[in-house]
C-alpha cells in the first residue's frame, strides 16, 4: 500500500480550485478530500455547517468497510458510496488507493449529476496527487535539530 504524498501549497491551490469548480457546477454544499486512514486533507464549501474532521474520519472508515464488503463478494472495487437523506445526501467517490472525495449535497439534487460533475474533479485530483508522489521526499519535515527532551510530555492532565 503506497502512502499519501506530502502536499505543497501549489497542490492545495489546485485541489482547492478543482473542488470549488465542482461545488459551483454541481450546486453541492461541501466537498472534502479525505485520506483513507481518516485524515481530512482539504475542504471546500460551507464546512462550518458540520464537524468536517469527524465527518472525514467516519466517511473514510465507512468507505473502507464497504471496500471490505466488496472483497467478500469477490468484487475488486466498489468505486463509490451513496447515502440518501431527507435534507442532505452524501456521495463518496474513490480517487486513488489512498484518498477519496466526499460530497455533501441537498437531496433535491440527483446522485447522477453529482457523479457526472465529480468524475473530472476526481481525475484532476488524482493526477495532482500522482505528481506529488513522483516529486518524492524533496520537502520532508526536517526534525533533525529537534531536542527530544522538548517532547517528553506533550499532554498534561487538568489539575
Amino acid at each position, binding site marked *: *500500500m*503506497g*502512502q*499519501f*504524498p*506530502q*502536499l*505543497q*501549497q501549489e*497542490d*492545495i*491551490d489546485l485541489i482547492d480550485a478543482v473542488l470549488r469548480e465542482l461545488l459551483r457546477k454541481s450546486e453541492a454544499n461541501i466537498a472534502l478530500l479525505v*485520506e*483513507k*486512514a*481518516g*485524515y481530512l*486533507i482539504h475542504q471546500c464549501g460551507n464546512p462550518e455547517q458540520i*464537524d468536517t*474532521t*469527524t465527518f472525514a*474520519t*467516519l466517511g473514510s*472508515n465507512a468507505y*473502507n*468497510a464497504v471496500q*471490505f464488503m466488496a472483497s467478500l463478494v469477490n468484487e475488486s472495487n466498489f468505486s463509490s458510496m451513496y447515502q440518501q437523506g431527507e435534507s442532505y445526501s452524501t456521495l463518496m467517490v474513490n480517487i486513488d488507493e489512498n484518498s477519496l472525495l466526499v460530497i455533501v449535497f441537498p437531496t433535491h439534487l440527483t446522485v447522477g449529476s453529482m457523479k457526472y460533475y465529480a468524475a473530472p474533479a476526481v481525475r484532476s485530483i488524482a493526477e495532482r496527487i500522482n505528481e506529488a*508522489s513522483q516529486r*518524492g*521526499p524533496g*520537502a*520532508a*519535515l*526536517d*526534525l*533533525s535539530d*529537534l531536542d*527530544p527532551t522538548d*517532547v*517528553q*510530555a*506533550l*499532554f*498534561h*492532565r*487538568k489539575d
Partner: protein
Amino acid sequence: MAIINQATRELQVKIVYYGPAKSGKTTNLEQVHANVQVPNASSKGKMTSLATSSDRTLFFDFFPLEAVAIKGFKTKFALFTVPGQVIYNATRQIVLRGVDGIVFVADSQYEKMEENIETFRHLEENLKTLNLNLDDIPYVMQYNKRDLPDAAPVEYLEYVLNNRDVHVPCFEASASKCEGVFETLNMITRMLLHKFLNDGVRAAR
C-alpha cells in the same frame, strides 16, 4: 501513515488503542478527552463513539487532539479504539489502516490472560493483512485494571505479553480512575516523534 501537509503546516498522526473486549480502551479515550489540558477549545475535537445499545464499541471511538506546534508544524493526533469483541475482527483491520502508533490495553485480571494473548496475536495478524509489521510500528503496553483484586503481577504480564525481541515500554493503569492514562499517551506520542526524528520523516512521510 502520518500525513504531512506543507501547505497548512500540519503533521497528522494516527494512534490506535487495541486490546481485548472490556479491557478499557474506550475508557482511556474518555479519560483523555475529559481531562486533557488544552490551550483552546479547538485543540480538542468531539469524541465520537460508534457503539452498540449496550455501550460496547461496534466500530471505533475517535477524537482528534492537537499538541503544541513542533518546528512550526501543528501536530494533530487522531486517537482511535477498535472493538474488542472477536466477531468484529474485520472492523479492527479497517481501523488499523494507516496506523502510526499502537497502545495495547491489556486486562490485568488472571482470567483475561488468554484473551490478552489471543488479541495480541490478532493484532500481529491484522497488521500483516495490511502489509504492516508490528516491529516497524511504535507501540506500548498498558496493563489496565490494576485496582482489581485478581490482577496478575506485572512481571507475569510482562512475561506473557511483552516477550518479543524488542521489549516495549509498559504502564500500569487504572483507566477508570485516570491512573496511567496520560503516562501511556505521552510515551506513545514521544516514541512516534522520536521515530520521525530518526527517520527524518523521510520519503513519503
